[in-house]
């Protein structure tokens, strides 16, 4: 019996370190193997679990910034809208289908009327004009769905204030952008963004009346190719764009946009 206890003492000593995540990798594997077959250790772990749970509760409480909640929920609602689980998708679906159908008039997506509008846009007056070649590339844009999105104060919105617009960029294959309306502004969610080089960032731009201005909300994609930024003021915005720029951002776009999103007026 004593031998058994002595042999077990080693594991018992390591239990707390295991629970605190303080075992070395090799020790961890051995301990977990032991734990699988040792009811005594499992019972001790269950007994000590409330103590471990009390540790993070002991930190001084500070309130998270409201922007964190806003960003998080914008991303969540963007996902839910894409998955059709936000409650707005059903009612907005018909409108989206109609809008998509309208863009097919003329035989191809991004048909005549839309093409002219985009062409005008890229040749627009203002301090930051994009090259016509960029505008032509942007014509590859495919509008995948428009679901109750509105800009300014007069538009409709979902019960969550989460009207959304989703576009698929033909210029950067695979990249999907979703703009989710949040009050006066909006959050822009990109998916399937390829890794960008070190020292480069994504920069968002808005276009109003032919003038392209930076949003000044620089962002980078995560490992899963997702990237999110916010546009504080969507009032009067006709187009939202994203380019890859040097770290710190630029005052005017220096590369072709990977996303171009015309905002329905």
């Amino acid at each position, binding site marked *: 019996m004593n031998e058994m206890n002595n042999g077990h003492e080693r594991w*018992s*000593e*390591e*239990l*707390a*370190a295991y*629970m*605190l*995540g*303080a*075992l*070395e990798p090799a020790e961890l594997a051995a301990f977990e193997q032991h734990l699988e077959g040792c009811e005594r250790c499992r019972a001790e772990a269950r*007994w*000590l*679990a*409330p*103590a*471990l*749970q*009390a*540790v*993070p*509760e*002991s*930190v*001084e*409480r*500070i*309130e*998270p*910034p409201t*922007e*964190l*909640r806003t*960003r*998080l*929920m914008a*991303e*969540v*609602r963007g*996902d*839910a809208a894409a*998955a059709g*689980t*936000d*409650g707005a998708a059903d009612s907005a679906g018909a409108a989206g289908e109609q809008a998509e159908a309208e863009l097919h008039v003329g035989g191809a997506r991004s048909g005549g009327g839309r093409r002219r509008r985009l062409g005008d846009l890229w040749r627009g007056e203002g301090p930051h004009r994009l090259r016509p070649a960029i505008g032509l590339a942007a014509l590859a844009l495919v509008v995948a769905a428009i679901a109750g999105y509105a800009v300014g104060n007069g538009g409709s919105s979902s019960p*969550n204030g*989460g009207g959304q617009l989703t576009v698929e960029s033909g210029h950067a294959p695979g990249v999907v952008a979703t703009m989710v309306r949040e009050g006066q502004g909006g959050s822009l969610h990109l998916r399937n963004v390829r890794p960008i080089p070190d020292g480069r960032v994504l920069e968002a731009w808005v276009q109003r009346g032919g003038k392209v201005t930076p949003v000044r909300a620089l962002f980078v994609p*995560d490992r899963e190719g997702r990237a999110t930024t916010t546009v504080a003021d969507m009032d009067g915005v006709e187009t939202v764009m994203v380019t890859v720029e040097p770290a710190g951002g630029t005052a005017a776009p220096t590369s072709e946009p990977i996303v171009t999103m015309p905002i329905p007026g």
Partner: protein
Amino acid sequence: MVKREKAERLADEELMPLIAAKDPEAFEVFFDRHGGAAYSLAYRIVGERTGAEDVVQEAFISIWRSGARFDRARGSVRAWTLSIVRNRAIDALRSRAGKAPKLTFDDDLVLEQRPSDDSTEDEAMRHETAGEVRGALGTLPGDQAKVIELAYFGGFSHSEIAGMLGVPLGTVKGRMRLGLEKIRGELAEGLA
């Protein structure tokens, strides 16, 4: 999609299936309940606000996108959530050479930058209980609280802690064990 008012009346365990079904209202209630504790924990570990925000955002998005794989057999939703936040924060801490975890919560939130070649001993001193130790940890003798803090908030192994503090490995293990047992005893007394 469940209405906000209804979601607020649900227990955490009841919210989880709704979150798994991608219900944003349920998720919002879940965040409102635990976001504060999560942010406080992340801030305690990474030591600065932007990093803490990133950690919390990543942790909660991972919960949302993974379908809230909560197993009630392994504890409460809150404990599960905070363990995810803790692991993310430790990962962030380890990937961030040159910054030390924050130990105290200064009113002016002035943060110090630590040169990357600081010794681990200095690092240990930064982690130790010079800062506020409240609640459960506050009931412990300093040497027990210290090893628990270094492990839980600093992400150090018991071997590393032994090296930092210059004490035998067995001593570190013993202090960890005694510390958790003492906290558990206090909790049991509180329930009695």
